[in-house]
């Protein structure tokens, strides 16, 4: 089962290396990782997706907690979380196929970022499922390159 950990860390040099090092030496696998500063410039947030099938998530969070620069860890409840990823996809197109690719992009509310003679670059935002569905549809046209961010997630506000 995939878990999304939202980790608040002190915004200091070497913090990412400590976290990455911890994951590798304890044998935990990172599926995705996104880092950025928060509303407080001294604090950064890392959103880490891990597969807890092999290692109990509790060990992962406890070990993370031992790092001095880690302030807070939240194991986000998928029911109460909104998560998004962003993907940039460069697809080969020519005059004949361009229209069809643009149609697919529109259905996914993706944006065309760049049009070249032989390719089209699309930006899509959404859940992992949506991004993968779009990629599936684009693949037959020839995907030249995909660049994906890690997942970022936020807890829903109270109802």
């Amino acid at each position, binding site marked *: 089962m995939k878990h999304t950990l939202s980790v608040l*860390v*002190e915004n200091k*040099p*070497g913090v990412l*290396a*400590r976290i990455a*090092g911890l994951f590798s*030496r304890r044998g935990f696998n990172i599926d995705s990782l996104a880092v950025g500063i928060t509303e407080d410039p001294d604090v950064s947030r890392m959103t880490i997706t891990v597969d807890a099938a092999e290692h109990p998530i*509790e*060990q992962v969070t*406890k*070990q993370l*907690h*031992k*790092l*001095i*620069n*880690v*302030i*807070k860890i939240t194991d986000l409840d998928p029911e109460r979380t909104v998560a998004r990823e962003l993907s940039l996809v460069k697809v080969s197109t020519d005059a004949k196929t361009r229209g069809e690719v643009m149609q697919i992009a529109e259905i996914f509310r993706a944006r065309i970022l760049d049009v070249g003679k032989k390719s089209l670059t699309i930006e899509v935002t959404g859940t992992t499922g949506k991004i993968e569905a779009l990629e599936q549809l684009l693949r037959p046209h020839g995907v030249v390159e995909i660049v994906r961010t890690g997942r970022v997630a936020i807890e829903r506000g109270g109802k």
Partner: protein
Amino acid sequence: MKGSEIIIESLKAAGVDTIFGLPGGMVIPLYDALYDSDLRHILVRHEQGAAHMADGYARATGRTGVCVATSGPGATNLVTGIANAYMDSTPMIAITGQARSDLIGTDAFQEADITGITEPIVKHSYLIKRTEDIPRVFKEAFYIASTGRPGPVVIDIPSDMQLEDIGYKPAGRLNLPGYKPTLKGNMKQIRSAATAIAAAERPVIYAGGGVITAGAEKELLALAKLMKIPVTTTLMGLGAFPENNDLSLGMLGMHGTGYANYAVTHCDLLLGVGARFDDRVTGKIATFARGAKKIHIDMDPAEISKNVPIDIPIVGDARDVLGGIVAELRKLKRRPKQTAAWMDQVIAWKQKHPLHYKDFKGSIMPQYVIEEINRISKSDAILCTDVGQHQMWSCLFYTHIKPRHFISSGGLGTMGFGFPAAIGAKVGRPDKIVIDIAGDGSFQMNIQELATAVCYDIPVVVCILNNGFLGMVRQWQELFWNKRYSDTVISCQPDFAAVAEAYGALGMTITDKKDVSDAIRTAIKARRPAVLDFHVRAEENVFPMVPAGKSIDEMIGGHRT
């Protein structure tokens, strides 16, 4: 004030009076400041020695040990010592010089990324980028190293930061939002633990080094006595519970006593405190204390249920939690279950499976040397060890009665640890007799520190149990590898007594059993560094032994069955 002087001020502010180290290019400014200071600096002969001395000093005194090395090779020579301190949770500060800040990342002369190299083996580390950060970094580092579950902290300081002249402003208040060790145990959990203990018929306490770190030996003794619970300790926990008490089971695990291993296997309640269910203790995890309800008290939440599932976890300081449990048990109205029948069983195991060894005529038995050291020192020496057979005999055949009197590399198993650790221990506790039990293999790994001991007149007694083998590996080869002694025979060996004399220490070679006690007495009385080379029976084994992967009640050898 220069950065180097600020470092000295920061060390003093942390209460440091002694440091261990060796200078080099990138710490010349620091050593220049040391020259005028009243800090005691012990010059070692190899940086690994400095790290182990700081470690031994810390374990003997409970204070944070400090070692210093230059950049590059000086820093990397500390690495084994830092890893050792990390595995055994010793409070230690390692200060390293670093290439000038504008040269970092350019593969400058003697540049090594020591914060990167040591990242997996430190509690925390700092690379100082601004001179004005020095007081804050030192204050944080000492706080982090010595509180919670202690551990080593590395402070890497580029040479230009040591030279820069700025005003000294002492560190302000600590601000570590991500570091708040839990000291007080949860009351509800403490009550559940007390209830479970009161309901147990066959309880055992399994105590580790955390009891010594927390200074919880009185609370441990009170709990054991109050409820009549037998106590076994880990290697790191030796001294946490007096072995001359009837409730003591000695050490458990791979080379534990038969009765400790049987008691743990058959108990209905296991109270682990300040111990981490390490593989050398548990043997086969699936059968470890299989019928027991398990309580685990530890400072480090990550240790709880890491290896063995725990029924009642309590995060907190061992002293606080054990004290709380004793208080709860005293309040209980219902009479607790009696453990008399269980104690009878434990006594029967003790009588049936005592530690013993066969005396071979004409040989000095290594166990006998330990027994004599125990007798002559009245179990009151600080005993340090290297790693291997002699280490296990020191665990088993010495009566450990006081905390901080047994200093050994438990987690990392570092050969070469004992001698420098003994020097550090003696520096910290000059009032104590300090004895290093070494093997002929391991002693040679830091033999150069004889110069340090002689130079500063640090009277440590080294007792080499010389069997001409890398004995523990030879034992495995004998038992599990068809006696193929691949590279464990040390056929080329120096005359250790002559080496000692050459360094200016007292050296003796003992080949006859009748000379053992006299040699020990002479060395202790000499009040100068001494090396006693005991030629012991070569192919003696450490028993009992639990073969790797077996349950701890499946012991071979050494206990009558």
